[in-house]
């Protein structure tokens, strides 16, 4: 028993050594931690003076029009005296939550469908993969715009649902391919021969082996989800009950402050790009570690 633990510990050490060598992962994780701190700091900042700093209902009564950075408002205010810094902090929370949830949901859906299609094959495979093809060819952003337009007011839950339902096919295709090759391995065969049920084989024997690849797609999906949500919010189809970075940029654009107030225009776009960038960097770093064909000669 102790030997197994030692083996696991050394495995973790090995992975850690690889991670530390990867510039991409280091850079990505550093940026991510920065935004994590921002997200955590958001309620603390609001707590200082909720009437002024709340990103939804707060506003500074002493401010008329948009003003630049000051001690009281580190990033300035928007045209009705709302604190931009608190909006930016809240945006970090929204982006993290939405990105993570979409990627987790779509990875779960994608992994389940990929495993089922790959393991059962035949009609299941054909049906599920055709469905994946159809969803994959849908133009995602126009579809989201049309759906938002139809439902009128948009909520983050609908965005979350639609994004999760459109991001899984890429994951399921890869998982399916993996499952197809794993299915014929001796350990699966022996499990089947010794009478283990299909569900148990999938959950206990197949799923753990496809998880590393699923993890890579998870990070890439976060990037996609963050960018699509931001784009949607920027176009005016975001959830009006919350404050996201895309929405901050939209207000700046709609109210005609894009050229007048760089302190309002630059931060939200920079944050969206940096957070999306960090997740993608981690994904690329992981890909280099997982894919043996990309290893250095």
């Amino acid at each position, binding site marked *: 028993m102790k030997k197994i633990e030692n083996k696991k510990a050394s495995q973790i050490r090995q992975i850690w050594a690889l991670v530390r060598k990867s510039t991409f992962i280091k850079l990505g994780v550093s940026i991510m931690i920065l935004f994590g701190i921002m997200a955590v700091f958001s309620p603390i900042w609001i707590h200082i003076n909720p009437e002024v700093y709340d990103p939804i209902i707060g506003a500074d009564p002493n401010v008329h029009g948009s003003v630049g950075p000051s001690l009281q408002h580190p990033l300035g205010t928007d045209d009705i005296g709302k604190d931009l810094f608190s909006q930016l902090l809240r945006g970090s929370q929204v982006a993290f939550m939405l990105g993570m949830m979409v990627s987790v949901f779509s990875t779960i859906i994608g992994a389940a469908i990929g495993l089922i299609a790959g393991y059962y094959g035949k009609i299941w495979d054909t049906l599920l993969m055709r469905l994946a093809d159809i969803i994959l*060819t849908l133009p*995602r952003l126009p579809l989201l715009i*049309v759906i938002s337009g139809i439902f009128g007011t948009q909520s983050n839950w609908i965005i979350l649902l639609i994004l999760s339902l459109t991001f899984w096919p890429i994951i399921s295709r890869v998982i399916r391919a993996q499952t197809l090759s794993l299915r014929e391995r001796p350990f699966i065969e022996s499990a089947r021969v010794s009478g283990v049920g299909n569900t148990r084989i999938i959950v206990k024997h197949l799923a753990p082996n496809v998880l590393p690849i699923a993890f890579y797609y998870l990070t890439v999906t976060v990037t996609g989800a963050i960018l699509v949500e931001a784009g949607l919010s920027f176009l005016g189809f975001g959830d009006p009950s919350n404050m996201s970075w895309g929405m901050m940029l939209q207000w700046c654009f709609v109210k005609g402050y894009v050229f007048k107030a760089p302190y309002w225009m630059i931060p939200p776009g920079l944050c969206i790009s940096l957070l999306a960038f960090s997740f993608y960097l981690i994904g690329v770093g992981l890909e280099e570690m997982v894919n043996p064909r990309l290893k250095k000669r």
Partner: protein
Amino acid sequence: MGKYIIGRIIQIIITFFIVMSIIFLLFRIIPSDPSSFLLTPSMTAEAKETIRKQFGLDEPIAVQYFIYLKNFVHGNFGTSFYSGRPVMSIIMERMLNSILLITTAVIIAYIIGVSIGKAIAWKRGSKTEKFFVILGLWFYTTFTPWLGIMFLWIFSFKLKLFPLGGMITPEKWILDPSLMEKICDMGYHLILPLVTYVLLWFGGYMLLMRNSMLETLKEDYIVTARAKGLKEKVIKNKHAARNAMLPIVTAFAISVSFSIGGAVLIETIFSWPGIGRTIVEATLRQDYPLVQGAFAVITLVVLLANFVADIAYAYLDPRISY
């Protein structure tokens, strides 16, 4: 091969049919009355009735569905609620503008991305490689409208080098200039959106080409080529790059579907009168016939691009037979 193509065509038709049916159903569960936008309170009851009849809003849903499908097959998307023009003619006009922007941008991004990808794969592990990967990734994940706004702010607003948006300068076109002047004016308006697009897209091609190159370099025929004593340049360009191009061909066509998503944002920022901006504006104005038509055309273009990608791949790679 013939059987494969027919199979794919049938699949495209089925997909398109499913998508259009979903869109039809979605539009019929709209909470508000779609005619409300078209009818203003000042209209007489008679005028309202005429318009309702004209747009077929009073028919039962099943009948509406068949009218809708029949019209689509005939390329008749109805009349825009907002402008009163036939949807088809609006879409055709806007689609041409989008194609001008997207194809130019995708081709330039493709050439730049593939050449850099080829070069950095050859220099695996160097500082140059890392720099370009990080640069490409940064632009690939940059928030599209933000990059566009930054460019407008710097180059158009501060430096006054480029126009603030649009596709033409209307004042110049009224004077009926020569064709050459017209092309120059359009090109002048095209530069900023084009540069934004290329920067956003070259990274994707670059990374794909790099990965594909790295995989190809491990193949036996590369070892053979080296053993034969061929020049490095010949191995890189003739042996490795040609084979590494295969997956990129597919990616080229698939990226069309993603570029249309990006076009929505870029066209909005640069007021480019393309199909992406059309779908945003039409949705905001609740101009449902135009939204339906634009979405149908976008979906069709994406499906066709994927079809072309598959055929090209099958044609280029002799190892694949159907």
